[in-house]
């Protein structure tokens, strides 16, 4: 059906909210259609963007499965729904009476590369929360466990595992950068981290570039929503452990979760949907948060934190639990 030398891309949705597509439409410089043009991508079908659906789509899927249409990039958004009891009836693809997961298995086998867009498609995500009655799983992971719909050893035609562009939702730039790498034939296995996420955004911690950095340094902590202080001690913030560049690559122009005044919930990680405690509270043992930075000795962290607390300027101590600066730096008498 397509004879061009463009990379063909098919985007499907299953057990998710559609939010990763909505986020992708926020892409700026390049915007989505600019990206397709510059990366030489031909969109075979996207549920929100394409002209036709119905039989035309089913014919397209059939033609890909039969090898008559080349599929270079398959993107899935949303979890794979296996339930109830492995039947896949929680999502039969409309018009086909066939479980979506069966379509996905066949299409993945025909695709050059497979992208799991968002934490649902990558790991199961929010849809797998609670008792996971939907039997939701990721494409190649079931939570932290390798092997989802596709086994751990599965490789696409281009010899890559599923590329997990995880996040809830994804930042549009994580998808557009990944597609640019793919278009430039530069996405190799060493560009993926231990959960097969593109390192282009997971080589960072959310903590990097956090606007509350000074409060973190002095352990001047927020106690309630809208406070300005560091949210690690009390508000459940996982920014020092979470892998993403959210505070380096702004969201919607200038935002991030931290800038929005709420905790990082580590949404790029498998299992984020069940932290084992209330999302906005930091679990503590003997007054010390249990989730400390992973690559420094705990005793050192505790010692540094007590020192920092003792040295906290009044400016920060007071502002940490207020909605706005009590007084700005360099004025009003910081005490040592």
């Amino acid at each position, binding site marked *: 059906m397509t004879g061009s030398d463009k990379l063909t891309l098919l985007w499907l949705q299953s*057990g*998710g909210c*559609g939010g990763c597509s909505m986020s992708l439409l926020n892409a700026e410089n390049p915007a989505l259609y600019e990206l397709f043009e510059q990366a030489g991508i031909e969109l075979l079908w996207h*549920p929100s963007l394409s*002209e036709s659906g119905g039989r035309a789509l089913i014919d397209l899927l059939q033609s890909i499965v039969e090898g008559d249409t080349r599929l270079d990039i398959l993107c899935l958004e949303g979890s794979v729904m296996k339930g109830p009891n492995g039947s896949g009836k*929680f999502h039969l693809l*409309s018009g086909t009476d066939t479980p979506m997961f069966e379509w996905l298995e066949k299409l993945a086998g025909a695709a050059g590369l497979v992208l799991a867009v968002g934490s649902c498609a990558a790991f199961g995500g929010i849809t797998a929360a609670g008792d996971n009655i939907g039997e939701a799983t990721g494409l190649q992971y079931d939570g932290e466990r390798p092997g989802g719909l596709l086994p751990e050893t599965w490789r696409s035609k281009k010899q890559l595992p599923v590329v997990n562009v995880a996040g809830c939702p994804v930042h549009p730039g994580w998808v557009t950068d990944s597609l640019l790498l793919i278009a430039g034939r530069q996405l190799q296995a060493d560009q993926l981290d231990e959960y097969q996420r593109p390192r282009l955004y997971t080589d960072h911690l959310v903590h990097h570039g956090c606007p509350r950095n000074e409060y973190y340094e002095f352990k001047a902590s927020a106690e309630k*929503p*809208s406070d300005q202080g560091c949210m690690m001690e009390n508000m459940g913030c996982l920014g020092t452990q979470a892998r993403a560049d959210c505070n380096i690559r702004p969201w919607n122009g200038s935002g991030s979760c*931290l800038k929005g005044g709420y905790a990082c919930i580590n949404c790029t990680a498998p299992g984020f949907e069940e932290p084992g405690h209330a999302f906005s509270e930091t679990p503590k043992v003997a007054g010390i948060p249990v989730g400390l930075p992973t690559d420094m000795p705990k005793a050192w962290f505790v010692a540094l934190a007590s020192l920092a607390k003792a040295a906290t300027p009044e400016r920060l101590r007071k502002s940490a639990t207020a909605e706005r600066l009590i007084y700005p730096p360099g004025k009003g008498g910081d005490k040592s």
Partner: protein
Amino acid sequence: MSETGRKILGPINRVEGDLEVRLEVGQQKVTRAWVNSPLFRGFEKILQGKAPADALVYTPRICGICSVSQSIAAAAALAQLQGIAPTENGQLATNLTLACENLADHLSHFYLFFMPDFARAGYADQAWYQREAARFRAQTGAASNQVLPARAAFLQLTGLLAGKWPHSLSLQPGGTSRPLSRSEQLRLQAMIGNFRRFLEQTLFGDRLENVNTLASVKQLQQWQSQHRQSDCGRFLAIADALQLHQLGRAADRFMSYGAYALPQGWLFRRGCVTLEEGHAVYAKLDERRITEDIASSWLAGERCPLHPYRGRTEPDAEQSGYSWCKAPRLDGRSVEVGALARQVVNGHPLALDLVAQNGASVYSRVIGRLLELALVVPEMEHWCAELDPQQPYCRHALMPAGGRGAGMVEAARGSLGHWLQVEQGRISNYQIIAPTTWNFSPRDGGDQPGALEQALEGAPVAGDIEEALAVQHIIRSFDPCMVCTVH
């Protein structure tokens, strides 16, 4: 040709989520329709046993296109449980965030989901086709490349107000977690101004105030003759050519939970309206009269209609239903919700005249959304100006260990409700009725169809069902969000 038979239409694209519609066709018309929401995830089960405030993390993730309204419904339910109300700044910032999402959705619907149907080959013989197809064709039409940047720029409001969109955690029971500085307030005002400019130059070709004061169909037609080059004018001309006002009438019962809370009350009032001999009859809304029925749903439980505080959501694929969706009813009747319903309930003269003449239709539903774009942006400018950087954005209160609360909000697509119950500090029941649950509901125990099922009856179908564009227009005129419908 008078072939009778049942046809299946799906997947239906340019809606949010997966949708299947079964049609019975006779004498080139749809005689009966059954609407199926094919995806079930189980949020109501996920929420059981969680800490109440965790609803603020889970529920926005029901839907990536109505995420803010889900957050606000959850926050409002928690606020009722806690017995608090947002601060003034908090309410204004909440309104601004909700308005941003609602209007961005109206814009996406018009340009990305609805208008591309007029570029389909089935209309190639129409006099207007070449010109309008070049403008509105999916992906490659000239409008897409203008609209996506304008939409992204407008959603930058959420970067300031809510950290990000979708899936923010800034919307709290007592307000928002993001106090704005004076300079940020000014920047916000400038961003709203940019969106106004886009709407005035591209969508309307006129001042918003000249559009939102149109008071009758006659005035709209007059306006149309003077604004043929604008995208709105182009839609109105196509609508005339295709007689879209005669397409997609449902039961003409409208409901709104009330939109955009202000100190003096709602910006768009709460209530319901029925049409009696062409006259809109307003009644107060009694939330206690809302029930959900599972007679046609793949759900187990009591077959009698239940108020959402008593409702349960237990999937059972072996039940003899045809959708995962429940059938919500107000006083036992199906109702229509959305921008048009909101404006009819609020008594906007143009909306009232539209439904008085032809009821809710493909035409009037689309106009309802465009009208809201023109109505709400000026309000956003006022709200932004009223933010006071010296006053608090968030009020705080303890979470009680038991109790209940309802959060009712108007999302872009209509009335969204969350009903929350807490026992021993944990969520014991959480039920959600989304706008498209109302509009795309299946039949209830009394065989009463939902709004879309009614609206499709009588739709012309000549030849191949896949090419029956009238059916496609009717479905998309509701701006369905299937991931909200069943969650």
